[in-house]
């Protein structure tokens, strides 16, 4: 399933932040988004994930194909690691969390409450959720925050394995993951301030 973004414009809080963005993400490929803070990477990812409507342009091939990982991991502190994963697996209509636990070295933590994990361990659990969704397109927003070097390598391996199985990934990150991926700098697509063509345009 190819994810195609055509002439996309996105807005945050009613203010256009990016415009004229087009790319295609084919199975087996990864696309890394780069750009300074505040440029609109998160807004772009939320739009592609369908959480907010695009200002203009279109996103094709995303519906029911994507798994989205945001800044926060969506973990419940009073559930154990395994319970958190089992819940997300069954929401996505799947079972079997062993592969995800192995992939992010969480086997030894499986019966610990998520609230008792360190920041990096929580992140690993949040990322392992992607493995239980079974969705082909991963959309990830700064996935490596608070991960150590080993965990980043673990994450890169997981993405590589996912790409090897014909999946694809759209990742906003500031660090080099060591993936063979295209890099898209969203800086040049920054939206221009709206032109005021009428004297009372500010009131409209």
């Amino acid at each position: 399933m190819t994810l195609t973004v055509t002439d996309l414009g996105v807005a945050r809080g009613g203010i256009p932040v990016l415009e004229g963005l087009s790319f295609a993400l084919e199975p087996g490929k990864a696309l890394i988004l780069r750009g300074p803070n505040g440029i609109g990477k998160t807004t772009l990812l939320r739009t592609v994930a369908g959480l907010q409507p695009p200002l203009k342009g279109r996103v094709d091939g995303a519906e029911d194909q994507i798994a989205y990982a945001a800044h926060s991991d969506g973990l419940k502190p009073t559930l154990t690691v395994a319970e958190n994963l089992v819940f997300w697996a069954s929401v996505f209509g799947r079972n079997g969390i062993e592969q995800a636990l192995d992939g992010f070295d969480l086997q030894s933590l499986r019966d610990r409450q998520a609230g008792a994990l360190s920041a990096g361990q929580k992140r690993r659990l949040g990322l392992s959720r992607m493995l239980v969704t079974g969705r082909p397109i991963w959309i990830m927003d700064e996935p490596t925050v608070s991960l150590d070097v080993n965990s980043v390598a673990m994450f890169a391996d997981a993405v590589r394995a996912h790409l090897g199985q014909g999946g694809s990934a759209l990742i906003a990150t500031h660090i080099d993951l060591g993936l063979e991926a295209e890099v898209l700098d969203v800086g040049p697509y920054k939206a221009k301030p709206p032109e005021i063509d009428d004297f009372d345009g500010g009131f409209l």
Partner: protein
Amino acid sequence: MIALLLRDLKLAFRAGGGFGLGLAFFLIVTVMVPFSVGPQSELLSRIAPGVLWLGALLACLLSLDRLLALDWEDGSLDLLATAPLPLESTVTIKALAHWITTGLPLVLAAPVLGVLLNLPVLGFQWLVVSLLLGTPALSVIGTFGAALTVGLKRGGLLMSLLVMPLYVPTLIFGSEVARRGAEGMAVQTPLLLLAGISAASIALLPFASAAVLRVNLR
């Protein structure tokens, strides 16, 4: 869907889940009322249906601000919105979980607390029936209020103000059933209206809740 329901129930019963909150509040209200109005058993038995209904309603209201806010804070709501589950069913399940953890215990506790207020013997069955019919509406309407205010920090006040007027019809007909039942009068009319309110809220409000949730998630 069942996974979401089970998760919400599990969360409610674990530490800090707030399972007992509504029940404890209900208990406090009904225990305190005789102290504040004085030990006149005649007066108490006259106001008992209304006090019990009001207590149940406020107990319900108290637990609403956790309903969606916790999922919003830890990011689960964003992830649920991108999951295969339609948002309409997500909010329905959330309302059901709220009813099981808040409404149902209130229904079961009400007859016991009715004794404290000297509720007439005839009133017990109608009190339970009216609460059983009315509390689902309270949960569904409350979910709508929670969805409206989900992005707001400390949105509890605004939510109470928004939800209160929507609760009024349920309260009027619910306590009317209990009052008429206690006085041995016919209860059919308010009972049917109460059932109608519940049925309409359950049928329509999940769509409204999902729509406002979509707007709030942007």
